[in-house]
C-alpha cells in the first residue's frame, strides 16, 4: 500500500466514501419502501419504484462519467484500482443465469448443479495463471487486438472478431431475454416494453461513457445485487434455525430435508400419484407407437368428450380445458409425434421418486451414474475454459493500472463472486425445506397466494395439480421451474413483498451489468478491430469513439429484436456462449502466450476447427436446434459422443483447437523475430 502514489490512494479513499454513501442510500430506500408497504402501498408500486430508481441510478452514473476519449472509452483510462475492478468484473460476470439460475438448478438437481459453481469459479484460476497478467502487459484495447499483434495480419484479428461476436451476442440475447422476464414480473408491463425500458438504462450508460461509465455503474450494480441476494437468504436462515450464517443453517436443515426426502419416497399417497404419472406416460407411449392412425382417432375421441361434456352440463372449467386441448391439438402426424414424445418423457420424469439432494450423480432421467458423472466433469471443464475465454471478462484486465493490479483484480473478482456463489447452495436447501414441510401436505383449498400468482405468470414456472383428487398437495403434484426458486424465494418463505422487489432489482442489476459489458465488447470488436484496424486505419480518435457508439446502438437493438423472437432456453444459450469461448479464445490465447512457435496459420486453423467441432456437435446433439436447422424431428433419438450433453460441447472443441494449432504451426514453421520479441516482452516482469 505504501508504494502506491499518493493520488492513487486518495482516489481509493474517495471511491470508498462515494460507494459507502451509495450503499447507505440504497438501504434507506429499501427501508422507506418497507415502511410504505406497512402503510399499505400497492405491490405494483413497489415494483415500479425499484425498477425506476435503480435504472435511474445507473443512468445517472453513466451521465456523470460521459467521455469521448478513446483510452477512457475503451479501457476506462487504465486506472481502476484492483478492488473496484474486481467488483466490476464480478458484476460483469454474474448474469441472470448466476443470479437466478444457479440456486434454481441446485434446487432441482442437488449435487449435479454444483458443476456450475465449480466451473464458474475454477475458471478464474486459469484467468489468473494463464491470461490476465500477460494481457495487461500487452496493454491495448481488445482481445482481437492481441490476436492481431501476436499472430500478425488481419486474418487472426478478424477471426477473433467473429468469435467475439458469436460468444457475446449469444450471451447478450440471453441477458436481454432475462431483463424482459424480470421487468414483466416486477411491474406487469408487457415483455417488449420491459426490454426497451431496460435497454434505455443500459444504453445511457455504455453509450455516453463507454468502459469508464460501465465500470463505475457495475460497481454500483454489484452492491445492489449482493444486498438483494443476501437479505432473503439470511432472513430465511434466521427464520428457520435462528442462525444468521446461511451455510451453517443449511447444514442442519439439510439433514431434515434428507429425512423428509426418505419419507416422501415411501409415502403411500406419493406412490399413488407417481403411479398415475406413470400411467399417463404409458398412455402417451401407446399413442406414439400407434401413429399415424392415433392422430385421427385421438382427435375424434377428444371431440366426442367435448360434446358429451357440453351435453351433460359439465363444470365450465372442464369444458374450457377440453376446448383448449382441442385447439392446441397437433396439426400433423409429425407434430403429434413430437408433442406426444415430449409429454411422455415429461410424465416419466414426474413418475420418479425425488432424488436425494446431497447424493452425487443421482438422476431422474439417466440410469447410468457413469454417464451423469462424465457429464458433470465435462460441464465443469467446459465452463472453466469458457470462463477463461470470454472476451468481456478478459477485457477487464486492460482496465487496471499495472500487471500486479491485474493479478490482484482477479483475486478480488473471485472474492466478490464467491460472496454470492457460496450462499447459493444454502438458499436452495432452505427453499427446499420450506416446500417440503409447508407446501407438501397442505390442502388445495388454502394454497398460499404466491402459488396462484406464479402459476398465472407461466405454467412452466409453477404448476400444481390435484392429480389423485384427494385435496392435499403431494410432492409429485408440484412442478417447479428453476427461476421460481430465487424470484419467488421470499414469498415462499413468507417474507414481506419489499424483499421480493429487492430480489427482482438485484436480478435486473445482474442482467444489466452483464449486458453492458457485452455490448461494449461487441461494439469495440466491430468498430475498433474491424473498421478502424482493417478498413480505415487513418480515422481520428474522436470519430472512432463516435463510430463505436453508433455500432453499440445498432447491436443493442439487434439483440433486443432477437430476444423478442427467440424463446429458447436461457441456460442453453449461456452454455453455448461458454462452449464457443472455450473452443476458440482459450486455446489460441494460451498457446499465443506460452508457446513462441504458435503462428498465424496455426491460430486461424485452430480457431476455425474449434468453432466447427463445437457448432456441429451442438446441432446434432440438441434436438430443437437440429429441428430448427436440419429439419429433423425432435422425436428422433440423438447420438451423443460418450453421453456428453450438447451444453458441454466445448470439451470437444477445445482439445481439437489445441491440437490443430500445434500441428499447423509445426507444419508452417518459420522463425519470426518480431513475434519473438513481443512474446519475450510479455514474459518480462513489469
Amino acid at each position, binding site marked *: 500500500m505504501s*508504494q502506491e502514489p499518493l493520488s492513487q490512494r486518495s482516489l481509493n479513499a474517495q471511491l470508498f466514501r462515494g460507494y459507502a454513501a451509495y450503499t447507505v442510500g440504497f438501504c434507506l430506500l429499501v427501508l422507506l419502501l418497507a415502511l410504505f408497504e406497512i402503510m399499505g402501498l400497492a405491490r405494483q408500486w413497489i415494483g415500479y419504484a425499484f425498477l425506476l430508481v435503480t435504472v435511474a441510478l445507473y443512468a445517472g452514473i453513466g451521465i456523470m462519467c460521459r467521455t469521448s476519449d478513446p483510452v477512457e472509452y475503451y479501457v476506462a483510462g487504465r486506472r481502476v484500482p484492483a478492488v473496484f475492478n474486481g467488483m466490476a468484473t464480478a458484476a460483469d460476470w454474474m448474469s441472470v443465469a448466476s443470479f437466478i439460475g444457479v440456486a434454481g438448478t441446485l434446487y432441482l438437481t442437488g*449435487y449435479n448443479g*454444483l458443476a456450475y*459453481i*465449480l466451473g464458474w*469459479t*475454477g475458471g*478464474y*484460476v486459469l484467468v*489468473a*495463471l*494463464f491470461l490476465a*497478467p500477460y494481457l495487461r502487459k500487452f496493454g491495448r484495447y481488445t482481445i482481437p487486438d492481441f490476436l492481431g499483434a501476436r499472430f500478425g495480419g488481419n486474418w487472426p484479428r478478424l477471426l477473433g472478431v467473429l468469435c467475439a461476436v458469436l460468444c457475446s451476442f449469444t450471451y447478450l440475447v440471453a441477458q436481454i431475454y432475462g431483463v424482459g422476464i424480470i421487468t414483466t414480473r416486477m411491474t406487469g408491463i408487457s415483455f417488449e416494453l420491459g426490454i426497451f425500458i431496460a435497454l434505455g438504462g443500459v444504453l445511457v450508460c455504455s453509450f455516453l461513457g463507454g468502459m469508464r461509465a460501465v465500470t463505475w455503474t457495475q460497481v454500483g450494480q454489484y452492491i445492489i445485487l449482493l444486498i438483494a441476494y443476501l437479505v432473503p437468504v439470511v432472513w430465511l436462515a434466521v427464520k428457520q434455525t435462528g442462525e444468521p450464517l446461511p*451455510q451453517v443453517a443449511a*447444514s*442442519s436443515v*439439510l*439433514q431434515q430435508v434428507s429425512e423428509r426426502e426418505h419419507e416422501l419416497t415411501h409415502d403411500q399417497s406419493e406412490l399413488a400419484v407417481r403411479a398415475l404419472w406413470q400411467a399417463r406416460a404409458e398412455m402417451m407411449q401407446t399413442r406414439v407407437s400407434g401413429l399415424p392412425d392415433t392422430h385421427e382417432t385421438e382427435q375424434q375421441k377428444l371431440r366426442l368428450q367435448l360434446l358429451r361434456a357440453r351435453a351433460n352440463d359439465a363444470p365450465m372449467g372442464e369444458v374450457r380445458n377440453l376446448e383448449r386441448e382441442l385447439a392446441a391439438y397437433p396439426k400433423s402426424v409429425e407434430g403429434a409425434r413430437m408433442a406426444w414424445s415430449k409429454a411422455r418423457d415429461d410424465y416419466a420424469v414426474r413418475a420418479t421418486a425425488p432424488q436425494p439432494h*446431497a*447424493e*452425487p*450423480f443421482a438422476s431422474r432421467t439417466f440410469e447410468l*451414474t457413469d454417464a451423469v*458423472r462424465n457429464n*458433470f*466433469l465435462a460441464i*465443469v471443464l467446459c465452463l472453466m475454459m469458457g470462463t477463461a475465454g470470454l472476451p468481456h471478462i478478459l477485457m477487464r484486465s486492460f482496465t487496471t493500472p499495472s*500487471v*500486479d493490479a491485474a*493479478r*490482484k483484480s*482477479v*483475486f478480488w473478482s*473471485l*472474492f466478490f463472486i*464467491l460472496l454470492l*456463489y*457460496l450462499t447459493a*447452495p444454502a438458499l436452495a436447501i432452505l427453499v427446499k425445506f420450506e416446500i417440503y414441510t409447508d407446501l407438501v401436505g397442505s390442502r388445495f383449498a388454502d394454497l398460499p397466494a404466491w402459488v396462484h400468482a406464479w402459476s398465472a405468470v407461466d405454467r412452466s414456472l409453477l404448476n400444481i395439480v390435484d392429480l389423485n383428487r384427494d385435496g392435499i398437495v403431494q410432492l409429485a403434484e408440484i412442478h417447479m421451474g428453476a427461476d421460481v426458486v430465487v424470484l419467488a424465494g421470499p414469498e415462499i418463505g413468507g417474507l414481506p413483498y419489499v424483499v421480493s422487489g429487492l430480489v427482482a432489482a438485484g436480478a435486473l442489476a445482474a442482467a444489466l451489468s452483464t449486458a453492458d459489458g457485452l455490448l461494449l465488447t461487441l461494439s469495440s470488436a466491430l468498430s475498433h478491430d474491424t473498421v478502424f484496424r482493417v478498413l480505415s486505419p487513418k480515422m481520428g480518435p474522436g470519430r472512432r469513439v463516435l463510430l463505436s457508439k453508433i455500432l453499440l446502438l445498432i447491436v443493442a437493438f439487434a439483440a433486443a429484436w432477437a430476444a423478442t423472437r427467440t424463446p429458447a432456453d436461457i441456460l442453453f444459450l449461456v452454455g453455448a456462449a461458454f462452449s464457443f469461448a472455450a473452443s476458440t479464445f482459450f486455446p489460441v490465447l494460451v498457446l499465443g502466450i506460452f508457446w513462441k512457435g504458435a503462428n498465424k496459420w496455426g491460430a486461424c486453423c485452430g480457431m476455425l476447427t474449434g468453432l466447427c467441432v463445437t457448432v456441429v456437435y451442438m446441432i446434432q446433439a440438441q434436438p430443437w436446434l437440429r429441428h430448427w436447422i436440419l429439419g429433423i424431428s425432435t422425436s428422433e433419438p440423438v447420438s451423443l459422443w460418450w453421453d456428453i450433453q450438447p451444453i458441454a460441447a466445448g470439451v470437444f472443441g477445445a482439445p481439437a483447437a489445441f491440437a490443430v494449432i500445434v500441428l499447423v504451426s509445426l507444419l508452417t514453421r518459420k522463425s519470426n523475430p518480431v513475434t519473438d520479441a513481443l512474446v*519475450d516482452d510479455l*514474459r*518480462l*516482469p*513489469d
Partner: protein
Amino acid sequence: MRTAQAYSRTRYWRHNILLIVGLLCFWWLVTFVPAYFALELSEYSIFGWPFSFWMAAFGAPLFFLSIVGFYAWWMGRRDQCARRVSQTGD
C-alpha cells in the same frame, strides 16, 4: 551485463512456469479428484455436510480463491525484487 540480464529473465520466466504448473496441479487435485470419486467420498462428513457436497460447494471454490491470491501475492513480490535488481543494475 546483457547476458546476466538475459539469464535473470530466463530464470524469472522458468520460476513463473514452475509456479504455474504447481498451482495447476493443485487446482486439478481439488476439482476433479473429489468430483470423480464423489460417490465414494459421500460417506464421510465435514462440518455437518457430506464431504463431496461440501467440497464442490464450498471447499474447492475457497481453494481456487487461495490459489489466485497466493499467485498474485508471490508474483507481486518477485516483480518488486526484479525491479529493485534492475534499478541497482542500471
